[in-house]
Structure formats: C-alpha cells, structure tokens
C-alpha cells in the first residue's frame, strides 16, 4: 500500500478490495466499457508518439500509465458538467466526446486549441499550468449564480500543484463553497522534478488546510477513481463544496516527446509501476469475475487499431492553415490592427484570403 488512506477497490492483480467508505457500483458491461476506453486511449497515445517520431506532430504528451485516472474521472462526469484540462487530458477529452483528431490539432501545430469547448463542455488545453484551476472555480461560481445542479472539474498534476494559481483556486473554492472538484494526477514527475520536491506531505492533505476534503485514490484503479470522483461531483452539485482528489499514478512515458526520462529516473522504478498497470488489472477482473472471452478483448484491440489508422489519416490530412487565418478570432469585434495585418498579407501575396 502506498498510503493507508489510499482508496483502492482493485489490486494490481485484479482482485477486489474491501473499502470502508467506497464500493464499486459498476456492472460488468460498464467495467468492460472502461476497459475499452483505456485500450483506445493507450492506442491513441502510441499512435501519436509514432506520428511525432515520424515528423508529423510537433510534440506529443503521452498519457500511458494514467489511463485509469482519466477514464475513471471522465466517466464519472455528468453531461452538463464542465472540465478544465491541461495538455495531457486525452482520456478526459475522449470521455467528453472530443474527436481524437481534434485532440491532435494542437500537437500538429495547426491550432492553439483544437475543439469547440462549449460543444463538448471541455475547455481548451492549458499550457501555463495551474491557470485552469481558477477558470474552473470561476465557472463554478457561475453555476452557483445560475442555481444549476452542475459541477466544474479542474485537472492538474503534482508539478502544477506548486503554482500560486492552484493555491488561490483552493482559497476561492473554499471561501465561496464553489461546486468544483480538483483532480490532481500525481504521476510522480514534473518533467524531471520528483513529486517529493513539490510537496513534503501527501498532496491530498493540502485540502484540509484550505478547509475542504481531500482524498487519495489509487490512480491506476479505474473502479476506485470512478467512485471517488462520482461522490465528489455529486457532493459539489448539491452544495457540498469542493473536493481535492489526488489520483496516485505514474507517468510511464516521457513528459513529452521532447523529454528524455532516462536522464533523471531509474528503469527499476518504471518497472515497479508497469506491474501496477491500470489496463491489465481490469482485464484480469473481467476474465476471472465476468468470464469475458478473448474474442471480446480482441474486438476491442481491433477497434483501437481501426481508430489509430483513422487518426493517422486524419492527422496527415491536416494541412498547413492559410496564414491569413492567424487573424481570425484574435478579437471578437473588429480591430484596426487586425484589418491592417490582413490587408498587408493580402498585398504581399502571402495569402489568397479575402478581407
């Protein structure tokens, strides 16, 4: 056990665990659905890494190892909730319905965002980490003013937990009892900085100092993540205020494709975490408790393969945008410098676009 208060419902071997506060409410079909989600996200991630290695993406931020944390949290959300991600929340985006090719527009360097955040109720990627936690709190304050039974959820990691904005978000969420859930994926590494440098106490303990509950959940246990997140969201929606969830997990891959983790961490550590794989433990459960057959797992693998192929085609089809589009949506209302820039670009023959 990582921590005696760690909420875990499924061991790395796929055995169920009794927990005094939480029990799994999921049936076999739902668990199989989560398994499918995780396999697809892992395949999406691997395909994206390949695309980057082949020069088709500027960058990729792998999510391998964190699939359970993201699918468990993502599937606990209600349709009307609103999520505020970093740039690594591919599993959350998947659960919100964002098409995979849209997730890659940022990394293909054809957009600073990639999807319609209002349509999917999933905000744009945040690269200056921590900022998004305040956006979530503000959105939650709007929910309060509308009298709606909805919640906002902010995603961040152990690295961003040291940002001042995250502290301010905690203060405000507590002061206004905002319907927000802070979901911290402690994947142990902020690029090369270990989480032990970010905090001398377990991160979830910080919540108590701000006056709201904190929970540490096994981030590689999709059943536990789902139940813990669902309870926090349910509480937030009915006036229970904020919760900090620390999903204790591990970044199996590099920080991004520009990173070289062999410079700062040892293989043995990675191997330990590979034995705690989030996908394999659910598969083990599905085999021995629900008698799911190999053919069904093969079906998921085939589906993931098809999706990866389509993703590759979609990414390769994303061509360089017309340069004149850089002027689009810089402002909502007409602006003389935007008109000036557009005109200059057209005069120089850089773009065939219209004024």
């Amino acid at each position, binding site marked *: 056990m990582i921590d005696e208060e760690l909420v875990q419902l499924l061991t790395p071997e796929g055995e169920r665990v009794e927990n005094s506060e939480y029990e799994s409410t999921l049936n076999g079909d739902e668990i199989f659905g989560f398994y499918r989600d995780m396999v697809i996200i892992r395949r999406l991630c691997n395909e994206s890494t390949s695309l980057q290695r082949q020069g088709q993406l500027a960058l990729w931020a792998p999510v391998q190892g964190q699939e359970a944390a993201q699918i468990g949290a993502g599937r606990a959300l209600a349709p009307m909730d609103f999520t505020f991600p970093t740039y690594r929340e591919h599993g959350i985006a998947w659960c919100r319905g964002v098409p995979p090719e849209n997730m890659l527009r940022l990394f293909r360097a054809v957009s600073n965002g990639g999807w319609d*955040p*209002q*349509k999917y109720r999933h905000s744009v*990627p945040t690269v200056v980490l921590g900022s998004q936690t305040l*956006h979530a709190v503000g959105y939650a304050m709007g929910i309060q003013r509308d009298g709606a039974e909805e919640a906002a959820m902010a995603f961040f990691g152990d690295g961003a937990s040291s940002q001042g904005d995250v502290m301010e978000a905690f203060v405000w969420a507590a002061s206004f009892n905002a319907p927000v859930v802070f979901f911290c994926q402690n994947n142990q590494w902020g690029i090369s900085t270990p989480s032990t440098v970010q905090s001398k106490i377990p991160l979830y303990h910080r919540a108590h100092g701000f006056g709201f509950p904190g929970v540490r959940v096994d981030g590689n246990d999709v059943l536990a993540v789902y139940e813990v997140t669902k309870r926090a969201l349910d509480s937030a929606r009915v006036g229970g205020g904020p919760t900090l969830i620390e999903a204790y997990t591990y970044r199996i891959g590099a920080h991004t494709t520009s990173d070289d983790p062999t410079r700062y961490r040892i293989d043995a550590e990675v191997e330990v975490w590979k034995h705690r794989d989030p996908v394999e433990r659910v598969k083990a459960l599905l085999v021995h408790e629900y008698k799911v057959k190999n053919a069904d797992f093969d079906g998921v693998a085939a589906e993931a393969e098809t999706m990866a192929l389509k993703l590759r085609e979609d990414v390769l089809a994303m061509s360089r945008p017309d340069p004149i589009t850089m002027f689009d949506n*810089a402002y909502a*209302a007409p*602006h003389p410098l935007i008109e000036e820039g557009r005109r200059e670009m057209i005069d120089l023959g850089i773009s065939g676009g219209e004024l």
Partner: protein
Amino acid sequence: MTTTMTMAKALNEGLRRAMEKDPKVLLMGEDIGRLGGVFRITDGLQKDFGEDRVVDTPLSESAIVGTAVGLAIRGYRAVCEIQFDGFVYPAFDQIVSQVAKMHKRSDGAYKMAMVIRIPFQGGIGAIEHHSESPEPYFAQTAGLRVVSCSTPNDAYWMIQQSIEHDDPIIFCEPKCRYWEKGEVDLESPPSGLFDAVVRREGTDVTLIAYGASVKTALRAAETAAVEGTSIEVIDTRSIAPLDIGLMAKSLEKTGRVVVVQESPHTASIGSEIVSELTQRCFYSLKAPGIRVSGYHVPYPPTRIEEDYRPSVDRILDAVDRVMGFES
C-alpha cells in the same frame, strides 16, 4: 439631461446602470462591497445588487481575473477591480496568457467579455506601487484593448461601453481625477469607445495625452496661448487600439506633435503614437515628435513625484522645442 458629478460618482453610476441593464454583469474585487472600494467607486452597489453580484473577494489578483475567465465562459460579464495599478502584476499571467488569448485558443467559441478596472497614474502622494502606469504592458498584448477616461462624462459612458463590449478591456482610471467634477450627459454617449477626441482646437502644435495628463495638457495649452502658441489637445481615450486617424488629421494641420504620458517613454504609448504619426504624416512634419514622460526610474517617493510626472512646464518646454525647428 446633464448633471454635475465627480468622476468617482460617474463611474459608480455607470456601473449601476450597466448592472441594471444586464443581469449577467457582476463586480469582483477586494473591499468593493461593504466598504465600497478603497476609492468608493462601488459605493452602495452591494447593498442594492447583493453579494452575488458585487463580490468581495479574497486578496488574490490572479484569482480575481482567473475566475472572471471561468465566469465569461459561463456567459457572465465580470468587472474586476484591481485595487491599485501596482497590484495588477500578480494577475499578469491570467490577463496576458489567458484573458487575451482564450478567444483565439477556442477558435471563437469563448468570448472573454470582461472589464479589468485599474486606478492608474500618480498624483495622490501615495506610497510605492500606488501610482504606476502599467498600460503599455497591456497595449502590447494582442487580444486586449486598453482605454482610459479623463472626464466624468467619459467615465460614465466608457465604463458602460466597455462592459457591453465582447472583447476584454483594461479600463484605466486616472485616480488623481476621481474627485474632480464635470458635466455628465445621462442620455447619449459622447462618442464611440475607441474614438479619440479633440479637447481644444489649435493650429501650431498637436498635444496628445490620455488619463490624468489630459488636464495637464489643457493647462499647458492655456498658458501657451497667452504666449501666442496655438495648441490642439487630443485625448486618445482609447490607448489600444489608437485612433491614429484623428491624430494624423490634426498633425497634418499643425506639423508638430508632443505626446504626454506618465509612464517611462521606452516602448510606451507615446513611442507608438510618434512612430505611427511619423510614418503617416512624414511630409507634414515641421519637427520631430517629442514625448514628455515619466523618467526611466521606479516611481519615486511621492514627495518628489511632481518632478517625475509631466508638468505644465515640461510640456511647454517640449512645445518650445518643436516650435524651434525650422524647415
């Protein structure tokens, strides 16, 4: 119908009217509720609109702006009060990296309709961080707009126009003019939010200013008139974008330009104005454009601030210099 009131009261009335018109408008800031703000700009508004619409916030500027982003996504229009100019920097990331870029990042799905009110410039004898001119930082950032009022009438109308606007606006209030009275037309706005206006007509020199410097410029123009120099005073009102067209028209007439500002002149609004005007009016120029600015030092202890801020004498000296060039 016109009535006389201070700029502080005009801002208060403008905020009140905006809140009456649109239930999505809400105010956020430190001490703005029961206290009415340290300058009393929001006096009485919490009593009338409630704590949900006039929000006394914890002491965290980044959060005041950062939560306004979330509220904007939800369809609200937050008016954030930054207590003093020098306190805006903790919110710099939210303003520059989030507020300014969210519309673009979301491909237009988000409107960042919000106003960030900043009492700026000096002249009140305060301690450090209470007298600064941060507007050039924001004017340089694409995605933002920056405006400043110099009269109670503009204060009343420009705050309402800013709140109604769909882009984020940095609203700079010349705090040393808060308590000066002027006529306010309660029925119709004097002009568009981004229009510059001619405050005094003249033929020899175009004197351009914004915020608190407008009044100083007008006093300089009066003095110059006694000495026989006719000065046209332009209030830029909008700092970004600049209404360069109106300024160019004036310069084509006068051939000489002086810009007044309290910020240091390196990479300043005055630099931008002089550069743009030189490009547009090169053949009309009778002298190089001159900036009268704060010096390139941290804002000084305020016992000596009047030797830092552009004074009538320093403006007249610049006027003499541009008048001294012969083509």
